[in-house]
């Protein structure tokens, strides 16, 4: 009789760090192909259309990269927070806070032209940080569960934004709920002429590197990891847990806020209702796929940007509902978490000789 057994590992071989996310993504595509077939489409044609729509042409490729930029930021935000076991499900709201701050600052007439972009970046990051600090304070002082607090705040911020869009920010001409445009000088410069690839893309890449440096090379990063792994030992070692959680929230919220700034300053130049189709939640999946490593967030974000960009094309060509992208998102999170099992355990096949 053959038995499968999980036995604990001494340490995780390095190649697993790359192999596991890839395996999870592969498993996801295989599992979701069932849904494609259910929709009556050919699997290869559907996936082909998906990736074609994402990477098939220069235009599509740039669209994917542009879409990846807010995802990198939200992925980073979640990766940093989760390291401290601060369950920041509020990246969505923090993104919107940053976006609103950027839209407000970017429309101010009294600011000199050169100051607009830096002010928006700073203001957006601060707004996001503030939005994340509220649940952090609630957690540290009042023992409120961070999942609930960050989630509730998402809805509060969203409705606040809708109130603004329906009121002082309503477009007087069209009557649509979208805010006035930011000033021309507040727009992010484009990295490539005549394309939509804006400064935010570069900022996202820089953000990933800086976040990685923060987590691996600074005392704060050290403290964050310690608090996340073993708060008691960290406390015995003299680390001020409450302060670390608050700082983590600030960094995390700030990163998510920058995602919002990018969408306003680089892409839409205003705030509208559909500004974020769930970037904050996708960030969670991205962070887990990247195993909370800031550098790994970049390829993971690109993957999900590709899925999101290509889904439209796939839907048009093969009739598979565009929501396959959402199912892929959920499935990959589950597959990735299951795959993580193999970092701590290895599979042993035992042959049992009875008697």
């Amino acid at each position, binding site marked *: 009789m053959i038995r499968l057994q999980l036995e604990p590992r*001494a*340490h995780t071989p390095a190649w697993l760090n790359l192999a596991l996310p890839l395996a999870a993504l592969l498993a996801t595509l295989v599992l979701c192909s069932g849904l494609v077939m259910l929709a009556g489409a050919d699997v290869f044609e559907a996936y082909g259309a998906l990736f074609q729509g994402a990477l098939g042409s220069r235009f599509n490729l740039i669209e994917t990269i542009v879409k990846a930029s807010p995802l990198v930021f939200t992925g980073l935000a979640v990766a940093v927070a989760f390291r401290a076991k601060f369950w920041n499900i509020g990246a969505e709201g923090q993104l919107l806070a940053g976006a609103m701050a950027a839209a407000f600052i970017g429309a101010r007439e009294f600011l000199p032209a050169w100051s607009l972009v830096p002010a928006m970046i700073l203001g957006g990051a601060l707004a996001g940080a503030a939005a994340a600090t509220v649940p952090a304070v609630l957690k540290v002082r009042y023992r409120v569960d961070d999942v609930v607090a960050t989630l509730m705040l998402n809805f509060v911020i969203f409705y606040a934004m809708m109130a603004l869009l329906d009121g002082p920010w309503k477009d007087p001409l069209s009557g649509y709920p979208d805010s006035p445009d930011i000033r021309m000088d507040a727009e992010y410069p484009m990295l490539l002429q005549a394309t939509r690839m804006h400064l935010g893309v570069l900022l996202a890449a820089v953000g990933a590197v800086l976040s990685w440096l923060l987590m691996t*090379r*600074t*005392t*704060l*990063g*050290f*403290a964050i*990891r*310690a608090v996340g*792994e*073993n708060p*008691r*030992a*960290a*406390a*015995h*070692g*003299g*680390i001020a847990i409450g302060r670390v959680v608050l700082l983590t929230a600030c960094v995390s919220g700030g990163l998510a806020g920058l995602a919002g700034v990018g969408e306003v300053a680089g892409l839409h130049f205003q705030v509208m209702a559909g500004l974020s189709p769930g970037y904050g939640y996708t960030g969670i999946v991205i962070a887990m796929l990247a195993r909370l490593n800031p550098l790994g967030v970049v390829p993971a974000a690109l993957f999900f940007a590709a899925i999101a960009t290509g889904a439209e094309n796939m839907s048009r060509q093969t009739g598979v509902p565009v929501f396959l992208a959402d199912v892929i998102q959920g499935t990959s999170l589950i597959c990735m978490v299951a795959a993580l099992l193999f970092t701590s355990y290895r599979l042993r096949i035992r042959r049992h000789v009875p008697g």
Partner: protein
Amino acid sequence: MHGGEILGIAGVSGNGQRELAEVIAGIATPGAGHVAVDGQVVKRPSPRVLQRLGVASIPEDRIGAGLITALPLSDSMVLPRIGDRRFSRFGILNRRAIRDFASEQIAAFDIKAAGPEVRTGTLSGGNLQKALLARELAFDPLVLVVAQPTRGLDVAAREFVHRQFLDMRTRGRGVVVISEDLEELFEISDRIAVVYEGRVLAVLDTAETSVAQVGLLMAGGAAGGMAA
């Protein structure tokens, strides 16, 4: 306690030893009384403050409160002193210095570990204790407070640990050993304090008492009169 002595704390588990250790370590606030070092009362005790005053503590729960099993051994070993100039400047870590420190201590204390970067959780109990000792002793504390120092250790490791305590005593430092092992306390302590139900019942000179007397006190018996 005085410098140049080893003070043993005896008592049946659950009579306040853990709380005592936590108060001295600065984790817990005392309900009554205070901690004083060198005659100075410590106003707002915290692990950092006590560390700076030269009080080092090794918690009883090695993997729950001492080391962090999921992190590399070097990280666990510099955990209490990560802000030290040796290991970080302006918030930036000096990874080489951290690694070197860990390697030094692994060699000096003969810790059986493949290297400074292995996961802390892969070490055996005895080696974990050595690592905890190393990380505190490397900074020459004035007082070392340690709970159940040789629990689960083999004979060689136990001797090693005791030698470190005696060595500290020779250098004029103080060691507070909280242990359930009376034999151990009688082996190395100069004086023994007995705790019972959260109070110190008596502090006796080791030379002038016996296991029986201490045992009686541990069970709550009267302090005077019962010389062996």
